[in-house]
């Protein structure tokens, strides 16, 4: 690992420079606080009772832990319906986005089709157009193809807004697989399709994991499309459902925070499982 300013090493060399270590420890403490303190506060608040949560002098550890907020959330709101919709949309988007972007990246950066550079440029250019500015015409387009007010519309849009970045991310992964492998497979008599499935794709697993995590998180968070293109309550995703719950129960902070906690938990959980691949993949893709 490369070290830019290295107080750690200086400490090993001379005991006097122990002082030099202080800034790095301070910054580590600060970064930890910036990331975790807000989350800590949400978690403990969600377990506080209705009286304790609104005290003017807040308690930093709940006096009594209660599941009441979660009970009210699950019994008096449609949280579970929203959760199901969000899981459906996010998992479907992740799967389709992986297939679409791996296919595109393979064609562009492995088979090097004529004009591939220009196509890659066009895909990135399309990606630069702000999605927000397209909501109005998109509404008309989706109505005319009969997708308005359906989860398929959300999947289609999420794929459209994750696949270009994913294709670009996969570029780094594909370039790092030696092309001699293809030639060797060809000499052994494998066709292009077999080479793709049996030689290259297995080596692309970390890249596919990266793209899947990115697409899942994007869809899990996505708010604007989901709020405008789906109006039926039973089809709403968590961000929309949760913001409706917030509007309805503004004074019930306990219930709202329980909802917030349960909305972030699935994404955090998945990230803790495969986040390492995502961070590694993002670095590999961005610095190639």
């Amino acid at each position: 690992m490369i070290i830019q300013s290295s107080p750690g090493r200086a400490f090993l060399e001379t005991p006097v420079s122990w002082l030099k270590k202080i800034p790095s420890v301070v910054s580590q403490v600060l970064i930890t606080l910036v990331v975790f303190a807000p989350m800590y506060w949400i978690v403990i608040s969600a377990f506080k009772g209705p009286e304790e949560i609104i005290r003017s002098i807040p308690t930093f550890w709940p006096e009594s832990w209660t599941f009441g907020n979660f009970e009210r959330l699950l019994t008096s709101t449609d949280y579970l319906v929203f959760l199901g919709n969000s899981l459906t949309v996010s998992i479907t988007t992740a799967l389709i986005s992986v297939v679409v972007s791996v296919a595109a990246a393979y064609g562009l950066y492995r088979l090097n089709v004529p004009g591939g550079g220009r196509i890659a440029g066009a895909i990135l250019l399309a990606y630069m157009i702000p999605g927000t500015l397209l909501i109005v015409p998109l509404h008309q387009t989706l109505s005319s193809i009969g997708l308005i007010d359906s989860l398929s519309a959300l999947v289609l849009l999420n794929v459209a807004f994750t696949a270009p970045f994913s294709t670009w991310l996969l570029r780094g992964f594909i370039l790092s697989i030696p092309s001699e492998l293809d030639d060797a497979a060809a000499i052994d008599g494998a066709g292009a399709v077999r080479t793709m499935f049996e030689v290259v794709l297995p080596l692309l697993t970390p890249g596919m994991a990266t793209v899947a995590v990115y697409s899942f998180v994007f869809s899990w968070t996505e708010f604007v499309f989901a709020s405008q293109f789906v109006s039926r309550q039973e089809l709403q995703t968590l961000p929309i459902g949760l913001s409706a719950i917030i509007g309805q129960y503004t004074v019930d902070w306990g219930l709202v925070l329980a909802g917030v906690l349960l909305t972030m938990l699935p994404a955090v959980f998945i990230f803790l499982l495969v986040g390492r691949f995502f961070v590694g993949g993002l670095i590999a893709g961005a610095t190639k």
Partner: protein
Amino acid sequence: MSAAAKTSQAGSRKSDGPSLIRPSRNKPTSLSRDSILGYLLIAPILLVLVLTIAFPLVSAVISGFQDQRIIGTSSSFVGFETYLKVINDGSFWDSLGRSGLWVVVNVVVQTILAFCVAFSLQQRGRWSKSARTWVVLPWVIPTVAVSVIWQWLLNSNYGVLHYLLAEIGINLGSPFGEPSTALFAVILVNSWHWFPLGAVVIYGALSTVPLDVIEAARMDGAGAGRIFWSITFPILQPVLFALGLVGSLWSFNILDSIYLITAGGPIEATTTAPVFVYDLAFSEFRSSQAAAASVLTALVLGAAALLFVRFGRPAENV
């Protein structure tokens, strides 16, 4: 796909050396089977993008020449009238100005945060190793949750940050409720949500800086600042350029953080261009006007991006 066709493709790819088995028979104009497969593989993404971006973009330009109000209702062709209406609307230009401020402050705050974090991630030890993964958590949390988290922390009655600052004599007031502070308060929340991506990418770029060059510079007596500006920064420049371009466009595009916290208020203090378009279409039901505003915004954004590319692109021969 026959082996012969495959090898002829391999041969044509290595045109500068002797081919392995037999010389390429592919004329440059004829499509090899690999290329056909390639185009088939690229087709799905192009289809999706045409359907969801190219087609709506064209229909936005056309819609701008009409006078439609609620989406889907009847409309007639009015020439440049709708575009002129938007151009003459002072609040449209105000929202673009706010968007400019939003992008610049967001990018500055996030870049500073990202650099500080990236340098910390580079150090040895257990903290850095685990932080390289968990530092991304604020980005993973859904925006709707991020907005509630910060509204709860800063709540003027029950908020813990409000309470802690009051203890040391700072009265925070209600940062999202004051027109003078609302935009910056939302920018800080949005930066908390987005800095991890920049931090991870910059950390990755820092790892590509060769250690021996830095050691050599240090031997020659160069200070930390000198080393950063003469060695590290030029190596980082291409990554920073890409990050700056993509990050600016992403920031510009953000609607959810703003809408969920302030909905553009108070008194339009946080109405950036995307919020302006969104309100025009879905609160005021002027869809043609919203489409025209979208097209104009995209043009301004495109011009800004071109300027950035023209003057920000690092020299190739560094």
